[in-house]
């Protein structure tokens, strides 16, 4: 649910990074944070465990400049990927405008990818959204690892509706902004229909 303020000419949108534990969601945000000018970003807030696993969410507000005289802000959130944090994931999807699914390219994480995608579908539905309709992009992360599952195999297993799909190495920034941009574009196009 975006927030449009005609008085101050601002628009705020919410984008959520979803995916299995350790897939690289938080790393995506960290890279975006590092590479964004100070005047265009707020603090990166991470509610994490002692071992740097996301406990509730990460949050990064990004100011992308103006479109048609409206200041455009994106609020980026990550969910905790670990299976037992499901209640928190559900809360964070509330009012979402766009979703990025960060998949882990490792063979051993294929089941976790599929399970997390199913979980996304369910949790979106419980929040009144339909994965088929929501602005959405797919990221195959950890492409740098030896033995990463081939692109085509991942695509067949995880691409749900022909959504834009990107290969990424999040710590190096490969594919990170491309993925964000693909969703931001859909979110803004969606707004133009309203």
């Amino acid at each position, binding site marked *: 649910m*975006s*927030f449009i303020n005609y008085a101050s000419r601002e628009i705020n949108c919410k984008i959520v990074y979803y995916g299995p534990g350790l897939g690289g969601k938080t790393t995506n945000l960290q890279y975006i944070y590092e590479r964004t000018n100070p005047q265009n970003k707020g603090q990166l807030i991470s509610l994490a465990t002692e071992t740097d696993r996301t406990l*509730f969410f990460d949050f990064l507000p990004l100011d992308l400049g103006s479109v048609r005289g409206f200041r455009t802000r994106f609020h980026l959130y990550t969910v905790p990927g670990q299976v037992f944090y499901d209640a928190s994931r559900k809360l964070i999807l509330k009012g979402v405008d766009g979703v990025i699914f960060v998949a882990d390219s490792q063979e051993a994480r294929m089941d976790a990818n599929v399970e997390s995608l199913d979980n996304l579908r369910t949790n979106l539905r419980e929040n009144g959204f339909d994965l088929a309709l929501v602005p959405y992009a797919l990221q195959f992360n950890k492409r740098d690892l030896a033995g990463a599952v081939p692109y085509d195999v991942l695509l067949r297993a995880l691409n749900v509706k022909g959504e834009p799909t990107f290969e990424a190495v999040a710590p190096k920034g490969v594919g990170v902004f491309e993925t964000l941009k693909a969703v931001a574009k859909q979110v803004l196009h969606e707004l133009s229909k309203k």
Partner: protein
Amino acid sequence: MTMFGPNLIVYEEEFERINAVLARLWMDANAKIVFLVDKNGQQIAAKGDLEKVDATSLASLTAGNVAATDGLARLIGEKEFSILFHEGERDNIHISIVGQRLILVVIFDERSSLGLVRLRVRKAAAELEEVLTQMASKAAEEGQAPASPFAEITDEDIDALFTE
């Protein structure tokens, strides 16, 4: 949630009314900061000593806090906890839900008191609910909404956003 349709849209007139309510609450409650956030963490309006806080983070964490507390409430069979209060050594935070969708936050110190804040918040909340009702009826009236500012957005517009 469906009260306003999917997007929360605030126009000049309501925005001014909201700001006026917050300004009065800030004065009457002797507060340091007063702000209004929607349940998704978007800051709507604020009043007070804002230079000293990161308002965007405050909004997001407040919404997270309320969301988690709402989850707890449902777990034990409550609809919601309509007021949350955190007491610090110096500053205190009073959080209340307005019209099921907005969160009103008051930060205050020893120059005020919980009793005073409670009293003033109740009055402000009632006024804010009136504004919300007005917004809802405006949203319901067809033809009221101006064309989306993004109606003719192009791919070039969007690309330009990412080139800084």
